[in-house]
């Protein structure tokens, strides 16, 4: 066979076995700082907190062990029970409403809307603000004497009543309102992205099959967005569990402690109440709750990858 090229192939710049080994170790090397830091700053600290929860620490950490005493106190603490109940109400409603609004707005925005970019930005901007910033505004708006109720009264509807902020039974719902306001735009963005990622031919197929638009969304598109729902739920529940600024800014847990949440409970007991052991116990309980959510997520994450 004719060989037209006589120049020998340029061998790779000679590599030593040492460099080859490097290539094998590099990925691990790159990851190792994060691994170490994660182990210390996440797991180490969690373990530290776990230890603390078995001590009678008050003002500052100290290691006099008292067994399960702090957990007993916690479970007997009305405020903690209220905080947990509130988290269920708040978390459940917050996630549900965010999803609902997010999906709806995303679907509406996906209808080839003019000015989509502007509307999207309006929906998204609350995410950019911190609650330290907007807490006061919300406090006003929701305050019966100053805000919405007053406004409607001034418009002549004096029977209108909107006193959730100051009503022990309803205060937790005002948290939902403000939290939904802040996060639903982000959920909208997630879903919009999901919708954009759906193969349009599936929608075409459904049209040909004779399905109406709502039917297509209900039967085909929403089920297809399952992974997005999952991501959104995870992000939202993480927000719900961590929400602290929001409660501090809006109700500080009040009236009474009717709108308290675990994060706030933990913070105030650890730092302002001089009940560090109790605070640590509540933190550990919170983490246990988070695990209950995260483990199934990871499970499906890893399983899903195998299927893909």
């Amino acid at each position, binding site marked *: 066979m004719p060989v037209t090229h006589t120049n020998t192939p340029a061998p790779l710049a000679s590599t030593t076995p040492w460099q080859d080994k490097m290539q094998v170790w590099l990925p691990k090397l790159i990851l190792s700082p994060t691994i170490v830091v994660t182990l210390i700053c996440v797991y180490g600290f969690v373990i530290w907190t776990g230890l603390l929860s078995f001590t009678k620490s008050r003002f500052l950490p100290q290691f006099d062990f008292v067994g399960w005493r702090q957990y007993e106190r916690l479970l007997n603490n009305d405020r903690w029970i209220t905080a947990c109940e509130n988290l269920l109400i708040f978390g459940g409603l917050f996630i549900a409403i965010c999803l609902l609004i997010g999906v709806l707005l995303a679907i509406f925005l996906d209808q080839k809307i003019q000015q989509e970019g502007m509307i999207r930005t309006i929906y998204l901007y609350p995410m950019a603000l911190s609650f330290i910033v907007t807490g006061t505004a919300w406090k006003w708006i929701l305050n019966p004497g100053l805000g919405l109720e007053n406004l409607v009264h001034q418009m002549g509807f004096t029977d209108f009543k909107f*006193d959730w902020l100051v009503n022990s039974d309803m205060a937790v719902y005002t948290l939902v309102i403000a939290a939904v306001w802040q996060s639903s735009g982000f959920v909208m963005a997630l879903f919009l992205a999901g919708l954009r990622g759906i193969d349009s031919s599936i929608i075409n197929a459904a049209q040909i099959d004779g399905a109406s638009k709502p039917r297509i969304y209900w039967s085909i598109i929403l089920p297809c967005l399952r992974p997005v729902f999952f991501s959104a739920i995870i992000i939202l529940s993480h927000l719900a569990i961590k929400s602290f600024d929001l409660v501090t800014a809006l109700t500080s847990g009040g009236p009474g402690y009717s709108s308290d949440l675990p994060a706030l409970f933990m913070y105030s007991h650890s730092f302002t109440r001089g009940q560090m052991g109790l605070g640590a116990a509540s933190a550990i309980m919170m983490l246990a709750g988070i695990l209950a959510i995260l483990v199934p997520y990871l499970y499906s994450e890893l399983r899903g990858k195998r299927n893909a």
Partner: protein
Amino acid sequence: GEVEVLHWWTSGGEAKSVAVLKQMMEQQGHSWKDFAVAGGGGESAMTVLKTRVVSGNAPTAAQIKGHDIQEWAELDYLANLDEVAKKEGWEQSVPSVVTDIMKYDSHYVAVPVNVHRVNWLWANPAVFEKAGAKIPTNLDEFFVAADKLKAAGVIPLAQGGQPWQEATLFEAVALEILGSADYRKAFVDHDMAVLKGKKMVEALTIFKKMKGYTDQAASGRDWNIATNMVITGQAGMQIMGDWAKGEFIAAGKKPGVDFVCVPAPGTQGQFTFNVDSFAMFKQKDKGAMAAQNDLAKTILTPEFQEVFNLNKGSIPVRTDMDLSKFDQCALDSMDTFKASATSGDLVPSFAHGMATTSAIQGAMYDVLTNYYNSDNISAQDTANLLADVVEDAM
């Protein structure tokens, strides 16, 4: 040397007062590093302080008051100020009720800045006049007046719905009902019998009754908004510490004319005190220690005491000062302070951390605020609960 001071005085008058301190320190050749963390009556500041201490980087001085001073001292973080105290003769110029709080194990570890009287009632005389009511001096009169105000269409009692404000209100009622001795037994010594006792139940009942004279939107309201309601005549009166005065003055109102300050109903001659103070943290550096001592000294100089307390509405901790620049409320306050110090009617405010540990204080807050805001718990149960949580938190 350098002083780093952690405090939560950030609003206009307060900030200016601290600025004076800074200036005075700088005149003595020290530099001032300001670490201000406002919010929640120092909650954030406490968090910061704890983390800083844990990281081995404690500030020179921090705004710590009441029982917390003992806690910090017990953990051996605070510096010994006995030398300055002796040189400056604090024992002579400051009443022992106050210095006791500043001492741990009979050594000075903190410097008092001012004394607040908490059991004040602030009233808008114009509103009272219009409603034909008389400014109350005891609880019976209070309710009579409140009814009249209510009938006249004003909110009788301006109240902010935050646990510490509710506790402030309760504390005033409890002081009247229990009397100074039982007050002290209940809230300082945590005598279970008193905590669960009949008088406590009565105090709780009246406390709850007062809620009927506040407006519905009180929840979460800041105290100064409540004060503003009195200023604008929306409400008739407010039970609040003497810092409320600043709000009236800022609105251009004159004491005795546009507003009056009287002791909370039935607590004439009694004085619930709230002393702001700076605790001094141990320093390694010699220069810093010198500066720290100078800071302690400066805080208790009459010059600073005057400027600061004029700004803040409180009274100086020194009882030997010229009070000519102070207004009537302050003068009244000072008189009562001096008198009650000997009569035993000078009691620490538990609502402001003077009486007990933050753990017990917090536990009591929870019980009180829950009782105040919820309709399905009785006064008796609350009293029992109060005793339980106090015992648990001890």
